């Protein structure tokens, strides 16, 4: 009798373990399927652009973070451009023309900019090799513990 109820509750628990992830996965798939585009809201777009651009007269602040008058004007400029129908790339290009490439807080991966990708990836490779090496040394007879 007791055994049966234990079996029942285990089966019910197994059912929960099954149903919860299935529903959750279904929601995730359905929710993300159309590739919901979060950047259609003009204000969010303007902010995302301001984050990528450096305030030209500030000490290391982005357009989004700076409280200077110039930054305020440039934020309005971005909003106006979005309203006028410019794409993100066009607005960024406009800033590069006006203020030079140093306005980009994310330097393009060309020339020196390649290092911003290559160096971290190189470091990752070195780290992985080091850890795998630590594992390998174990099989090396010389590394037998004392």
């Amino acid at each position, binding site marked *: 009798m007791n055994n049966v109820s234990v079996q029942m509750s285990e089966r019910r628990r197994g059912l929960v*373990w099954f149903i*919860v*992830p299935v*529903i*959750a*996965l279904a*929601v*995730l798939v359905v*929710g*993300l399927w159309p590739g*919901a*585009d*979060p950047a259609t809201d003009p*204000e*969010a777009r303007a*902010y995302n652009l301001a*984050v*990528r651009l*450096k305030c030209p007269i*500030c*000490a*290391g*602040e*982005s357009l*989004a*973070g*700076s*409280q200077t008058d110039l930054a*305020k004007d440039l934020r309005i400029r971005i909003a106006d451009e979005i309203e006028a129908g410019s794409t993100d790339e066009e607005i960024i290009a406009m800033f590069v023309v006006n203020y*030079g*490439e*140093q*306005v*980009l*807080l*994310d*330097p393009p991966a060309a020339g*020196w900019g390649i*290092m*911003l990708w290559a*160096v*971290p990836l190189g*470091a*990752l490779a070195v*780290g*992985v090799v*080091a*850890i795998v090496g*630590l*594992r390998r*040394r*174990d099989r090396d007879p010389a*590394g037998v*513990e*004392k």
Partner: protein
Amino acid sequence: MIAAAGYLSIVVALVSAIALTVQGVRVSRSPNPDPARVKIPAIGLVLGGVAAFTLLEIGILTHDFSIAYVAKNTALATPFVFLLAGGWVALAGSVVLWGLMLSLFTWLVWRKLRVGDGLGVLALGIIGAVAVFWFGLMATAANPFEVCTEVVNGFCAASSWWPLSAAAAPLDGIGPNPLLANHILMAVHPPLLYVGYVGFTVPFAFAIAALIRSDTGRVWLDRTHRWSLVAWIFLTAGILLGGWWSYEVLGWGGYWAWDPVENAALLPWIAATAFIHSAIVQSRRSMLQAWNFVLVIVTFALTIFGTFLTRSGVIASVHAFSLSVVGPVLLIFLGLIVFGSFGLFAARASTVASSPRLDSLVSREGFILLNNLLMTLFGFTVLFGTLYPLLVEAFTGREVAVGRPFFDRVAVPLAILVLLAIGTGSTAPWRLASGKVLWQRTRVGLNVGLAVAAISVLVGVGSVSVIVIIGLAGFVIANIVAFYLHQSSRAHGGGKSWPTALASTVRNDRGFWGGQVAHIGVALIAVAIGTTSALAIRTEVPLAVGETAVVEGYCVKYIEPFSRVEPTRNVQGARIAILDSTCSTTRAVLEPRLHEYPKFGQVITTPQVWTTWIDDVYLSIASLSDSGIRLKVLIFPLQWLVWVGGLTIVAGGTLALGRKRRDQSATPERGEQRERADV
């Protein structure tokens, strides 16, 4: 008078520090090292350090404007809290605070020394050598007690380092940088950060002493375990409060901008986090001896590097509050530390035991290694990104900037991996985790994680990376809670009542459970960073008096403008009511303001925040005129979770401080038993 006494105390501390170094080295080489023989220099250092700081504060509080530092950084009208904080708003003062803490730590270390403790005495000598640098800096390039010798137009125009020079005092001082005197948090954040920075001197000194003495076992690590943890806790709290200050003061609604100076505080934290984890592996599994030396040296070097970055003005930053000749001096010190320490390490490499007995990558130590890989990679990349503009400019002369997009691109994937590693690894058994055990300990989290991710989609999160991070945070927290309940239920099954069982589980291994609490804090912060970035609402509304606007379920109403004159600033503000979405019931009244500091010709936008369980409503004035205002309305969902998560990390660290390492004193057999009991 105060200046002379202050300078004298710096000299006393400097001389004591030199004596401590020399005597520390000598005594440690004697056959039976007696700490009593370094007592006098240690006391001298403490007295000098405490006196220097106290005298500086007295000078500030009594408005002794004949001291150039006091005249520059404080004023008669400065409120009391910011007078106190005046002791560390600028470079020279903050070095004094640094010296105070270092001398107090020297005393705490000395108290624990026993006769015959050569390692400890030598470590004290190393701390003395570090103190020589800081007090030497105070006595020369960053003298806080420089005497004002000439007053022009009411300002101190010239000053002399010689404390007995004929003094001329302006009638009033200039006062602190407005950004630093705008919020109470600025009085608290730097001292916390400094305790953290300075605290790492102690483990560093013990590591160097261990290398010099070729005593490279785990003794230095065990003795400094609590020091590292305390320093790490303070560093965590300091960074957290710094973020909070940014949020409350800088007016754009963010708490982290990947600014070079913010990175400078984050870098030692990252290295220290890696160190704390790899130290556990050494004490439990006798691995990573060499790596721990590297990490502790890097952590300490990064604290100096952080100070250099903040104080040298070499990199443009919003937080670089003082520019001076101290930069090159700090850079030389940094070079000495890095080359000296690693040179010593290389010379002693043969004495550092290497016994890499990694049985399996799928084990607790395997996951901690993964943590170390991720932390090292993270730290290295943040360092590289911070220095990249300098490198490019040095080689090509071109100006470039690296900011949020780069750091986010690095941090988000690493955060995902870190959460995955925490959720899987922190409850995994040592040595070898079988697939079955791993599945048992992670399946609850997998389900909860999936469910939380699904809920976040239903709530409207659109960004895939944020959904993944929220799901993984659920995974981490659920696994830890499930493991906790599982362990406690075994104690409960052994006849204990549930409350006793729950409490005794923690009490038996406070180090482990403190770590898990901190892990939960990390997961909470990850969720909050996700929601506040992906679900934030940012909008600007024009309002005339009496008008309302509806923003995302809230109605804001411009009640009236106001203005008042305060001793140090003119305040202009707008009284704004926040009502429910139908604009009928008032729920809060906020007063976002513009603070004008006439002496500095600077206007600071001061936002005001209304916090609820769901979100923060953050109001900030974009522009204010007679016809009305343009009001920035920012809404950040679950913003409070950032602070609560941070506090949870601090609480976890504090819990772990009380850990009693039973296996340390126990016989090896009992240690083994415990290990098996853990599985």
